[in-house]
């Protein structure tokens, strides 16, 4: 496999061919996940550090499983006690990580650009598992993988509405970049307080009301609402948010007939999405979780087995 990238910092660095490679590779790993014995020796002897400076059980577990199914050794380096407090230098953490000599670092950090910062300072692969409000490339890739399972490989002409807190969402930014690259029309819908001031610059259409944003949409991605947004004065309260923006079956009536619903999780039921809709047949939420493992296996595999230029197999 001739994978051209040392790191995965965001989807913007990927070409359409690269995306296809990820999708094909993930599809082959998806099959492993369906076997009774879900383990292959592909990355035996390789080590993956899971560096999560911000809590995220889901993404961390997903990467952990992905690594283990490929027989890599995974090590957690969590934000514990005082050793990785905010303000303590990430540079020192980087030096520690580098000294462990891993084959890949999967990292989550509260600062936009943090993965980029680390990637420029270590020789191994850095996989961005979310940095600040900037990017969450594996989430976007797994969302794409999930949609392609339903829609097939060609997404040109589809319309996807991203609903909720776009301003503070790395998931939204990566999805917008990836989906628009593949010819999908992306709509954003949120109160103005939850959209970046120049949201149009992201390359999507902007709505502040649900009804027009959902019209003929082929899929709706709900974003997780951080509960502290109301404390920051961005929202009156969750009930008010739900009144305007909670996705329900009734509100989907003018969407495309077979509209799909996605959510990166964890869900605030009744806030971002009605409980019955989350569990309904057109919900892809659990498919996303399954895709997540396959896509992350692909990402680890591609980056760890990649050959440097001039190196021979």
């Amino acid at each position: 496999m001739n994978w051209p990238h040392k790191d995965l910092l965001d989807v913007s660095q990927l070409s359409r061919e690269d995306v296809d490679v990820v999708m094909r590779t993930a599809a082959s790993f998806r099959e492993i996940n369906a076997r009774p014995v879900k383990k292959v020796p592909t990355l035996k002897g390789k080590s993956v550090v899971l560096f999560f400076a911000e809590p995220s059980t889901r993404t961390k577990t997903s990467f952990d499983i992905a690594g283990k199914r490929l027989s890599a050794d995974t090590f957690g380096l969590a934000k514990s006690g005082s050793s990785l407090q905010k303000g303590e230098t990430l540079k020192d953490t980087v030096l520690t990580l580098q000294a462990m000599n891993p084959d890949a670092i999967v990292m989550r950090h509260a600062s936009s650009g943090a993965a980029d910062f680390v990637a420029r300072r270590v020789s191994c692969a850095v996989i961005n598992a979310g940095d600040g409000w900037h990017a969450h490339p594996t989430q976007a890739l797994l969302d794409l993988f999930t949609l392609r399972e339903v829609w097939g490989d060609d997404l040109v002409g589809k319309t996807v509405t991203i609903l909720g807190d776009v301003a503070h969402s790395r998931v939204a930014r990566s999805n917008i970049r990836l989906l628009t690259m593949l010819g999908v029309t992306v709509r954003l819908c949120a109160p103005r307080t939850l959209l970046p001031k120049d949201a149009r610059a992201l390359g999507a259409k902007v709505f502040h009301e649900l009804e027009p944003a959902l019209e003929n949409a082929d899929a709706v991605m709900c974003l997780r609402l951080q509960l502290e947004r109301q404390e920051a004065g961005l929202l009156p309260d969750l009930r008010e948010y739900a009144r305007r923006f909670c996705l329900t079956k009734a509100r989907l009536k003018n969407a495309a007939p077979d509209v799909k619903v996605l959510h990166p999780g964890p869900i605030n039921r009744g806030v971002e999405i009605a409980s019955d809709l989350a569990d309904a047949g057109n919900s892809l939420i659990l498919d996303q979780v399954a895709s997540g493992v396959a896509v992350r296996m692909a990402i680890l595999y591609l980056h760890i087995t990649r050959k440097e230029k001039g190196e021979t197999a």
Partner: protein
Amino acid sequence: MTPPDLVVADAAVPGRDGRWTLVCAAGQVLELVPHDPAARFPEARVIEAKGQLLLPAMTDAHTHLREPGQEWKEDIASGLAAAAGGGFSNILCMANTDPVNDNESVTRLMLRRASDAWPHGPRLFPVGALTMGLAGKQLAPMEELLAAGCVAFSNDGEPVADTELFRHALEYAADLAPVIDHCEDPYMAKGAGANEGVMSARLGLRGQPDVAEALQVARDILLAEYLNAPVHLAHVSCRRAVELIADAKRRGAPVTAETCPHYLTMTDAALFGYDTMAKVNPPLRTDDDRLALIQALREGVIDILATDHAPHAAHEKETPFEDAKNGITGLDTALGSLWELVRLGQLTAEDIAQRFAWRPAEIFKLPHCRFAPGDPADFCLFDPEQSWVVTPETLRSKGKNTPLLGQSLTGRVTLTAVNGHVVYELARAGA
């Protein structure tokens, strides 16, 4: 009459044709005369300018020297070294030291450190705190600070959010010294190191809108007019603020304003790749803002240039963007970076003399040189053709935090004199 003891021969002078010779005696200008190669000055040190520009030494109305308290970033000796190398004779240093310069002992310490390290200049003029500890709760003892040697008052770095208190500060200071305000609505600007706009949206950074600055500019203008008390608006960075200031000046409001070289030469495009060196407060704005500032500076809507020299240590910038300290080191590169605009015809050498030397000294009532007989012999020589690469070694400041690192600038200060004392010479200082 004292015989000439320092002569600069064969220099170009902004706004005047031909070559000129500056004749000084006992630290003062004797005369500026058309250059005569036959002239002899037997008692004097003669500096052959060989066509370099002779500029009045500049006054930086906005410098952060980190002494006392954060000497790892800069101390008064290194800051004044950078000032001398940058062509400055006067430096106003802000009060946000540790401890804060809100009492005479800190002011006196600063002045003593300056005279110990650089007895012949550049001259240091401390800016006293406007409120105790810059906390925005209680006025600082301004008369005490003035008596100890402060020349202005400012809460720079911690803008006073309480408008009622700020009003009283302006009223109280009105009979003592000018107030310099850092214009930023602290609630709107909180935690943001990037201009709010396309760039912050793409990078996923918290944005600071230009209106956060303009709101405070508007407040300050209204108060200055209402109280008839002067306010100097620090480091203006955006078109919206420029428009408010232009309006205010048309009405005769007692406001003056400054901007900095980096707002004239850079935009928020510099943040691409999360370059922490370009993180500064107020943030680098858009090209539209940049062009508005250049025009405002030319027209005098913005009165002066100041560096907002904000040195930081390497480890304070070698972090993810949002954790990095705000600030660009500016004394060493001010003139070199501005010269690009002169080469492009957007500013003239006269604009620079006016906005970076004469007008700031006027506003803060400091000694300066207009090359008239009796003026202090404060000048610098500037070689407009000399190209140099900005490296840590070329910066005399301890702060190496500038987005210009690695870039090549054309135009360099080669000599600086204060009161007729040569305090910097490139040839002697080495690269």
